[in-house]
């Protein structure tokens, strides 16, 4: 249990934003002088996958390739590229895999809409089965009631 808590805390600490003052992989030499451009660069780097570490974004990765791509995307921004142009630049080279958030296209519909669709189907199935409960039994006919009363009377009496 203690090990699990420790793991949980470690995972939380790894989430950017949850813990402030986190040490980034971006080194000071890479930063742009213009704070607005730098903020855009940081936001973009958090959406780009490090191709070496695979499940880390390039903003956090220490891999040399991630460093190169951070520098490259800052160059693109300085040259006047929009955010979409920078992402397309990376996509043209590394494909959709480089985006940590996959684009919504026909090939990713299953990914985006599969889970909500499953939830809807499951909800509908639950509703459907719960409505199919057997109806309440018909009230007893007078002669049945009389017979029941007689039986109960005999037992109580």
């Amino acid at each position, binding site marked *: 249990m203690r090990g699990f808590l420790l793991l949980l805390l470690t995972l939380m600490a790894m989430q950017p934003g949850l813990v402030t003052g986190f040490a980034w992989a971006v080194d000071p030499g890479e930063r742009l002088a213009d704070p607005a451009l730098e903020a855009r660069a940081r936001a973009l780097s958090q959406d780009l996958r490090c*191709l*070496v570490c695979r499940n880390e974004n390039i903003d956090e990765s220490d891999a*040399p*390739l991630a460093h190169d791509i951070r520098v*490259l995307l800052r160059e693109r921004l300085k040259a006047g590229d929009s955010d979409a142009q920078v992402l397309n630049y990376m*996509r*043209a*080279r*590394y*494909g959709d895999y480089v985006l940590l958030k996959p684009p919504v296209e026909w090939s990713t519909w299953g990914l985006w809409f599969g889970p909500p669709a499953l939830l809807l189907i499951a909800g509908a199935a639950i509703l459907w089965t719960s409505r199919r409960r057997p109806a309440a039994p018909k009230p007893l006919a007078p002669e049945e009631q009389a017979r029941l009363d007689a039986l109960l009377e005999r037992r109580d009496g």
Partner: protein
Amino acid sequence: MFRLKLIYLLPLVALVGLLGVLGLGLGHDPSALPSAMIDKPAPSFDLPPLLAAKPGLKTADLKGHPVLVNFFASWCLPCREEAATLAGFAASGAVPIYGIDYKDKPEAAKSFLEQSGDPFQRVGIDTGRTFIDFGAYGVPETYIIDASGHIRYRFAGPLTPDALRDQILPRLAALKAGK
């Protein structure tokens, strides 16, 4: 009654389907990334030569005949692994092999090529930008470029004799046959 039985078969059918999908996944290597550059023109680059005796490499060098382009580095162990395969293939003289030395110290790269039997006709020095323009993510990587300068295939990782025979040679033969 019959309808009820079919419903009970559904989980079994779903299970078999799922096992089928998972079974297909077993033959798939998740660490190998598909290249987004396939069938696109090779990026534009002009790399300075590593060796005094051999020219560097630029985009225009890739046109006119199919070639192999190999990203390597002296610090990369798998590159040492594939060196013998590459040297053997270079000796066969089938197609020119051009090297791109990635993020390397020139002296280290020179002695690496001396030791491993330099398979390259041209070797350019890349500080990292051409690597990204090729959509490469590791060394070694080997690209097949066709006569029109388009990237046709990428092999990531060390070329083994089997990979050369099964992946590279058939594609080169197809390119030479005109498709």
